[in-house]
């Protein structure tokens, strides 16, 4: 404990003595984490937008013209029992025609050419967001297709899978960028600590000869790394917050409808930035100090 305090003191002294190089490292880390943070934010916002869109996503079950009332009831019951389905809307032949007439305008004359209503009755089903997985939906559609009285099942297959690929893509990019930034931050600290380590080579030799343990020699450098990383993290989250408020206020000037749509991290996530900085820097300084041999 006392040794820890002494190491802490040494770290603080060294930080003061090598002010500029440490400030530079802090800023490098801050910029790195800010880029990462911004990217995560974009991902988060895109993801929530996509989720928002998918809320309107559904399956349309077209019914055969000769379906019996009993079959319809059974089907309705089947849909009600399925917990993935959150909304069931029945659209009769008459309703379908009316909707079409309302939307098609001048094409109405074509419809009038039919003696009978050509449109089928249907069920429109809305699914919960978690169920919007291409494979899962495909399975569900084929299940429904087997029910008696069903003519066809349609859903935006292509759209759904491309949406899915996009979400996955963004996640992969974020993960890759995250690793790159991790390495970059660790490297920034690594090179700084390496320089400081060499600058104090004589002191370290002295410590070794006086019987300092490896952790005693290492600890000040690790603490320095942690401190630098934490500072970088704090600056990055503050900077990001500032940039967020600045840009959103600008965007809202142009597009008032976006008000309240663009999210920032929730406050309880703020400490993640200094924590991430500290961990990345710690890794860097650990590698910089390397193996200590007597």
């Amino acid at each position, binding site marked *: 404990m006392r040794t820890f305090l002494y190491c802490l003191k040494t770290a603080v002294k060294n930080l003061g003595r090598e002010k500029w190089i440490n400030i530079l490292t802090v800023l490098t880390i801050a910029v790195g984490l800010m880029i990462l943070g911004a990217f995560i934010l974009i991902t988060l916002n895109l993801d929530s937008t996509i989720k928002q869109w998918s809320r309107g996503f559904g399956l349309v079950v077209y019914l055969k013209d000769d379906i019996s009332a009993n079959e319809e009831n059974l089907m309705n019951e089947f849909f009600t029992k399925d917990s993935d389905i959150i909304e069931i809307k029945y659209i009769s032949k008459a309703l379908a025609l009316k909707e079409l007439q309302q939307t098609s305008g001048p094409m109405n004359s074509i419809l009038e050419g039919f003696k009978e209503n050509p449109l089928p009755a249907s069920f429109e089903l809305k699914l919960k967001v978690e169920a919007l997985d291409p494979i899962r939906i495909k399975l569900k559609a084929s299940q429904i297709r087997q029910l008696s009285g069903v003519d066809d099942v349609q859903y935006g297959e292509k759209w759904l899978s491309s949406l899915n690929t996009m979400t996955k893509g963004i996640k992969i990019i974020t993960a890759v960028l995250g690793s790159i930034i991790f390495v970059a931050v660790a490297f920034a600290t690594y090179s700084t600590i390496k320089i400081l380590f060499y600058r104090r080579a004589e*002191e370290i030799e002295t410590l070794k*000869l*006086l*019987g300092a343990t*490896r952790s*005693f020699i290492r600890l000040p450098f690790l603490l320095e790394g942690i401190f630098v990383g934490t500072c970088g993290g704090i600056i990055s989250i503050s900077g990001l917050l500032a940039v967020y408020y600045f840009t959103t206020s600008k965007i809202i000037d142009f597009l008032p409808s976006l008000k309240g749509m663009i999210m920032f991290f929730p406050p309880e996530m703020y400490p993640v930035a200094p924590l991430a900085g500290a961990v990345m820097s710690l890794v860097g300084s650990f590698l910089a100090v390397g193996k200590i*041999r*007597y």
Partner: protein
Amino acid sequence: MIQLSNVSKYYDNEAVLKDISFFVDKGDLIYITGPSGAGKTTLLKLIYRAERPDEGSIHVAGWDVGELKQSTIPYLRRNIGVVFQDFKLLFNRNVFDNVALALRIHGLHPDEIKETVNEVLKDIGLRHKAHEFPQHLSGGEQQRVVIARAMVSKPTVLLADEPTGNLDPDTAQIIIKLFKEINARGTTVVIATHHSDLFDNTGRRVIHLKGGELIRESIG
């Protein structure tokens, strides 16, 4: 206290020490002498495990030095004080902090450190220079601080390599007197030097090295 058994050391297949065996009793003060390149420094380095013997074994205060794991080397070194030519004071801290460093490494309480360091500084007659920086001290004063640093943790063994190297004869005598005092308190002292006037007529054991071989032992 120190036991060397058939120790050999090679640098680039060149034997620097050949089959050296000797024993130093607890509380002894001995000299190692020989011409330049004889292997004196190398011998001391083996004792505090800055180098490893290629053959033979070395025991210091119960430790099998050659076989120590890296993680236990610091604990061996806490029992060995070193006064070396290239083991200088740190110029970014004052005399007090230079000496105190040895105790901080051991994790002593600050009050205890203060008391012990001031006592040792008084012993070497530099109590009044505690807050000076090493670059403001004379060579002899610096060397006394180095000795204080080596002594402050009360090691069982003290190794000195050419401790009077660049000092005038009077200052050299002060340094030697310090070693004798330290030895009188029970510390085993080994001094490597090629200045025979340091050990002539002292009645102490002198080990003579030449070309890496122990050629003879005499009484000074």
